[in-house]
């Protein structure tokens, strides 16, 4: 018997024998807190009526008149169609041209006129041109995460180095380091093409959970497990998450978020670490490294140098 059983039984009405059974079951604290939690949620759920459920669900149980619902749905559909048609005949789609450059520690989210959201990572630079016929974002440096409102008539394209990433209705991030790019798709589908090359390349289609790593001449498509996927996007809520990366790589990540820089020298560069850290708190990271790995940290004001003793 678990807590849900008891709350459901109580909701139906307990028989006299059950009442005693319940009260002895509740003597156990673990049972008791689980019961209190579910019971509380169940009691609160009466308020769902007050909030006003969406019409679709409010009518859900009146299944005896299915046609009423169908007629309404068709009428609503026609209305939406008519409004959209009229709107499309009368309005040009809004256009926009923006340029954004972020400093260390900044992570702004920008909203484009087409409804698309872009979260820009620290030390990044991008340019977006939204015109009537297409939407182009040029990632000049750094990383950005895109939540694109799909519009078949107006493709959304990200240009990064020698590659072009076209949205096919999706959420994805693009990171650029020189001409190397890294595309992580969290939802939907993107298409990655090489551009500026003499011979046309075969496009790569990446779906939710895929990672595309493209260098000048080679492109790798792999699937990320959900954990790696969320690690990869940890920067979005201000955290750096490392999973067995070298100290040198970790330092590089920190340096993107902080004006004070971290340098790792000698054998210390290759030590592998893991963990989750606030990107803007380098001190905690340094203290940890020093204490747990027995490294020395030399603070030179604008640079901290980590090395093996």
């Amino acid at each position, binding site marked *: 018997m678990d807590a*849900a059983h008891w*709350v*459901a*039984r109580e*909701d*139906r*009405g307990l028989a006299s024998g059950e009442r005693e059974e319940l009260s002895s079951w509740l003597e156990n*604290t*673990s049972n*008791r*807190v*689980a019961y*209190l*939690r*579910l019971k*509380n*949620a*169940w009691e*609160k*759920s*009466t*308020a*769902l*009526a007050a*909030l006003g*459920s*969406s019409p*679709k*669900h*409010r009518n*859900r*149980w009146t*299944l005896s008149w299915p046609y009423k619902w169908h007629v309404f749905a068709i009428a609503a559909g026609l209305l939406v169609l008519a409004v959209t048609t009229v709107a499309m005949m009368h309005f040009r789609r809004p256009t926009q041209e923006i340029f954004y450059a972020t400093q260390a520690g900044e992570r702004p989210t920008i909203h484009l006129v087409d409804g698309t959201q872009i979260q820009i990572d620290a030390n990044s630079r991008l340019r977006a041109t939204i015109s009537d016929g297409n939407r182009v974002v040029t990632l000049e440096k750094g990383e950005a995460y895109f939540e694109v409102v799909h519009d078949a008539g107006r493709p959304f394209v990200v240009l990064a180095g020698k590659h072009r990433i076209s949205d096919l209705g999706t959420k994805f991030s693009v990171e650029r380091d020189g001409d190397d790019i890294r595309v992580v798709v*969290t939802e939907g589908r993107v298409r990655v093409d090489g551009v500026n090359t003499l011979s046309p390349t075969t496009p790569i289609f990446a779906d939710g959970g895929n990672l595309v790593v493209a260098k000048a001449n080679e492109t790798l498509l792999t699937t990320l497990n*959900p*954990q790696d*996927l*969320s*690690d990869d*996007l*940890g920067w*979005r*809520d201000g*955290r750096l*998450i490392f999973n*067995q990366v070298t100290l040198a790589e970790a330092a590089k990540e920190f340096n993107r978020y902080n004006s004070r820089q971290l340098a790792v020298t000698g054998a210390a560069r290759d*030590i*592998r*670490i*893991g*963990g*989750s850290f*606030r990107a803007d*708190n380098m001190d*905690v990271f340094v*203290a*940890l490294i020093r*204490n*747990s*790995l027995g490294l020395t940290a030399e603070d030179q004001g604008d640079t901290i140098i980590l090395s093996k003793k």
Partner: protein
Amino acid sequence: MELGRSLDRRDIDAWFVEEVLPLEPMLTRLLRRNWRDVEEVADLRQEAYVKIYEAAQRERPSPVKPFLIMIARNLMIDRLRRNNVVSIETMNDLDWSNISEIAPSPEDRVAARQQLTRMQAALDQLPPRCREVIVLRRVHGFSQREVAKKMGIKEETVENQVMKGMRVLADAVSDRRGNLIAGAKRLEWRRKD
């Protein structure tokens, strides 16, 4: 004596429901952010509830929030230690004051309304039959028996759907959509070996 004890418990029950349960979104967020295995988060939360309830039987902690955070933190440390993953100094070194949850967040203040919104969203996403049962029972106030009759299903089925629905609604309170990004993180430290 027996009566005194049960009154006492009812007192703590009320305290638990009013003071601790509203912190569930915060607690869940905290655990998710710091614990890699999402599957274990509900378990850790339950354990934290047991701990705080037991502590309250000795003395009511006040304020509740930092106390609950401390419990959660200690639970995670204990587990990590059991799994031989972490050194204790390492966890102590982590700057927990950085965790924004310690101060009451605006989110806590609008919690009630927000939790209801989440519940509503969860209700809307239940499988049709389950949703129908919940709506008839909770929103329209029919008894389980009446619901069974109205829908032409067995009373046991209604009870089962009630069970299922209530679990989802309870979880919804602390569940934000888009948890792919926010959730599933933990503090992990492996020494190089």
